[in-house]
């Protein structure tokens, strides 16, 4: 057989590694691409099994042309991550089809490395990284099985050797990662694909439709306050603001990007919002934001912080907010008109109710209070699973069902306000959150999504009114979990009731946040802090490169030393080194091994002088004899070495355990 030709086990190994690497892409690559890769791998393996080579070139070319054309039809481009990865995966699959020689296997290996790396560009979990490193380990091990002289080494040996290379590479990789200069912003524009579905709040709100957001445990964002934390009733996280109502659905309207001036009052709260990707362009900030650190971030006229591109990757935003502000500007007429507009001929009973109430309360503030009082006194219920509402949803809610959650109350309240000529807008966002006491930050989940109203009171400006608070004050004070637990699925209730499980979840979340802060968001600032920590004066990019160079030189010296040490003829086998280490440890206790003494005798002598160590030492020595002289032994050399390393004898025996020293051993 030609040794240059790839054999069946080699093909199988390469194919398995490619399949494992593509598992990381399952969500981003079209299913038919994965199917093509799998199919071509299977065909090739089947052919190899029968000892045949790759299919003829014409067939391969035809398949390749067809697949690439299909891919182009689907993506319209090969630029961008998912299209590029899909193309790469396809090429790898087709390469597999034509894999004949070892050279082809090398090429497939390189594709596997690149496919793995591209999965990490968008991914950000620790497990993904660990998984792909494992795949890379396996792939590297398959390279060791390419035919050479002598028999092909078995899997265990290949894995051990490539694992050894990987473990030696790890410290060097850490040095690179810590000190390689990072850039702020991309080198060139990345096409934003927004390929994952939008999550969290949407740009419309339809009370009466079934909404599962309230039951979602997914994290929307995490917040770490720099110093003071605002009171629970003030933790309103502002999101998109809705102005347009068609009788059933509230929609986002186009708002200008000139935010009115506010005079902040009271204390400022500084915090960092760690936003999970939600595929919209708004950033949640505490009411009312005054400063923020976000490239391209602007405040709309509704006081919502937005940026141009949607949030498709996790971002951190540092911001400052004031919970109390003073409005000095006036509401101009077009805006007033917009915020009092109601669709004609919809929800007639509600409009009538508003007129009746308004005639009794001509003052705006009094009218607001009267409506809130109505919600509080009449039998309205707060529930996360309200009945579906008819077309005139507000009428149905106010007069028939009277069951709903924040969206229903905010919507109904806004209608009643607008019907009375008070400019009102609906603000969606989040309210509350869970404090993680293990790492001092707040977790805001999708279940904390909230909707409230803002009314324009002449002389006071936009005023936040939360009608939900009138029905279920606990919802605002303590969050959703205590309030609505009866509506939640049983498992989730059980989790919240079980203290230690909740704690475990918080600890896990704290780890996740640590991973995010320390690893995912490691940037120029972090590098600067690292240099400061290393006591390097005036850290800058140049110093960073110098530190990188020095650290690399040190790491490479270590590598050279550790690799050369292995081929030193004086170096003994691991077993002998481990036994020598044991002897050194015992010699440090004043019991050096005598030149003529065998392991068993030595152990017996040690046991006489230090009975407390006797059993441990004699077990180790028995293992050593077993390994060294070929007696059946229950431990491996590596286990013996680990046991010797773990053996840490106390310097002095406990008083009561001290045995009289035999005179003979003292003399020697």
């Amino acid at each position: 057989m030609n040794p240059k030709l790839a054999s069946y086990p080699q093909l199988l190994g390469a194919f398995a590694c490619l399949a494992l690497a593509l598992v990381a892409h399952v969500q981003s690559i079209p299913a038919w691409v994965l199917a093509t890769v799998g199919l071509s791998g299977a065909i090739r393996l089947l052919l190899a099994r029968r000892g045949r080579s790759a299919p003829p070139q014409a067939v391969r070319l035809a398949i390749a042309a067809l697949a690439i054309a299909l891919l182009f039809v689907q993506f319209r481009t090969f630029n961008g991550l998912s299209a590029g990865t899909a193309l790469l995966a396809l090429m790898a699959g087709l390469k597999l089809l034509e894999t004949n020689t070892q050279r082809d296997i090398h090429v497939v290996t390189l594709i596997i490395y690149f496919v793995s790396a591209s999965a990490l560009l968008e991914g950000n979990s620790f497990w993904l990284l660990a998984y792909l490193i494992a795949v890379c380990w396996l792939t590297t091990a398959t390279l060791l099985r390419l035919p050479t002289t002598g028999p092909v080494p078995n899997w265990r040996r290949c894995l051990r050797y490539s694992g050894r290379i990987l473990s030696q590479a790890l410290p060097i990789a850490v040095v690179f990662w810590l000190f390689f200069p990072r850039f702020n912003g991309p080198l060139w524009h990345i096409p934003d694909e927004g390929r994952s579905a939008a999550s969290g709040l949407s740009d419309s709100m339809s009370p009466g439709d079934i909404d599962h957001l309230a039951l979602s445990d997914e994290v929307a964002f995490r917040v770490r306050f720099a110093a003071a934390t605002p009171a629970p009733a003030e933790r309103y996280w502002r999101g998109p603001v809705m102005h347009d109502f068609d009788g059933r659905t509230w929609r986002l309207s186009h708002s200008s990007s000139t935010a009115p001036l506010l005079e902040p009052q009271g204390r400022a709260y500084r915090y960092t919002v760690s936003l999970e990707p939600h595929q919209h362009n708004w950033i949640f900030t505490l009411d009312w934001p005054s400063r923020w650190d976000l490239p391209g971030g602007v405040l709309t006229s509704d006081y919502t912080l937005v940026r141009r591109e949607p949030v498709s990757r996790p971002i951190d935003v540092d911001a400052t907010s004031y919970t109390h502000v003073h409005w000095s500007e006036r509401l101009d007429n077009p805006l007033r008109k917009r915020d009092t507009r109601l669709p004609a001929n919809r929800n007639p009973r509600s409009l009538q109710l508003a007129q009746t109430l308004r005639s009794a309360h001509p003052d705006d503030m009094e009218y607001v209070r009267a409506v809130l009082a109505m919600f509080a006194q009449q039998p309205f219920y707060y529930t996360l699973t309200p009945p579906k509402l008819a077309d005139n949803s507000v009428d149905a809610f106010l007069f028939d069902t009277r069951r709903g959650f924040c969206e229903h109350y905010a919507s109904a309240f806004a209608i009643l306000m607008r019907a009375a000529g008070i400019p009102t807008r609906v603000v969606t966002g989040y309210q509350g959150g869970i404090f993680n006491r293990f790492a001092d930050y707040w977790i805001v989940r999708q279940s904390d999504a909230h909707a409230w109203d803002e009314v324009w009171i002449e002389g006071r400006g936009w005023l936040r009114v939360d009608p939900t608070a009138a029905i279920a004050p606990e919802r605002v004070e303590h969050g959703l979990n205590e309030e609505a637990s009866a509506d939640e699925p049983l498992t989730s209730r059980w989790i919240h009731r079980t203290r230690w499980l909740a704690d475990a979840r918080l600890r896990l979340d704290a780890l996740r946040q640590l991973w995010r802060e320390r690893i995912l968001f490691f940037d120029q600032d972090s590098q600067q802090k690292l240099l400061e920590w290393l006591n390097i004066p005036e850290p800058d990019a140049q110093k960073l490169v110098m530190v990188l160079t020095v650290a690399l030189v040190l790491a490479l010296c270590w590598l050279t030393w550790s690799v050369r040490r292995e081929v030193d003829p004086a170096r003994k086998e691991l077993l002998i080194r481990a036994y020598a280490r044991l002897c050194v440890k015992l010699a440090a206790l004043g019991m050096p091994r005598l030149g003529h003494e065998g392991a068993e005798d030595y152990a017996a002598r040690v046991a006489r002088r230090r009975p407390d160590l006797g059993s441990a030492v004699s077990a180790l020595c028995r293992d050593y004899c077993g390994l060294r002289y070929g007696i059946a032994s229950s431990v491996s050399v590596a286990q013996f070495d680990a046991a010797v390393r773990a053996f840490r004898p106390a310097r002095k025996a406990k008083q009561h355990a001290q045995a009289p020293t035999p005179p003979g051993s003292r003399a020697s």
Partner: protein
Amino acid sequence: MRTLRQAISEKTRAWAARRHGRDTLPIKINRRRIYILPTRFGLMLAFVLVAMLIAGLNYNSNLGLAFAFLMMSVALVTMHHCNRNLLGLQVDVTTEVDAFAGREASFEFVLRNDSIVERRDVEICCMSAAGMRSVPARSTESVPVAIPVAKRGVVRLSQFELRTRYPFGWFHAWTYVQGALTAYVAPSPRGNRTLPSAEGLGSVDRSARPGDEDFAGLRAYQPGVPLKHMAWKVLARGGEAAVQSFTSLAAQPEWLEWSSLEGQDTETRLSQLCLWVLESEAAQRVFGLRIPGKEIAPARGAAHRFACLRALAMYGIGEPQ
């Protein structure tokens, strides 16, 4: 392209020869003489690594960068391991080898590994031939390398190469050894004449040469006599230590004569003589060789045979210094 590569290779060989001077075998490969360069796959890997790095930087992805750096470090470590695969190996070579024109001259290299790690896939190259072996920990392996030779004469190698691509084939580490290897290429053994002595086999004078076939009486003991020839019975009777003396059947020295092949051209004569030498040695005869300018006294054994073949190889070429 091909010739450019060859030219570069020749230049580096010459440079290495100047740099290291002449080596005495056996030699231990030290780190100063090991060179290393990426292979084609190594260059492809470098390309992929650069692409990974740029992608990681562009996407500002710390995990992507971590993976790229890990792979870069793996490549660096692999380079050290490839270098290690040759480091500290001991090389020796057996120089007295048979070689016949039109066949192969086979050198036997010996690789000794004193360390506790296996050296996999070490290749030895001289000229266009190569042999590959793995040398397990603390052991010795021999690697035959057969060089095809077309012409009678002498093949002199001043240099050979040890190389390896282990572990992953991304790097190619090699070293040049300046050891003088000489192979005398005897003429191709060929001819249709029978041995001259085979004709007159009947008239053998069995007086002169000692041998080990026919018993011819006892001699006085001399140190160095084979033990099986000792006359133990004589010794046991209390007599002097004596040796049984034998004579060989073909004790008559047989001369392989250039002059007996009158009327043929030089190479045919040499080929015929070569064939006779091999046949005579195989038949354990005592023979001598007489060619113009050279006469080798009758003897037997591997050294004698080698001397005869060498004389035939060097006929008309001139003795090496």
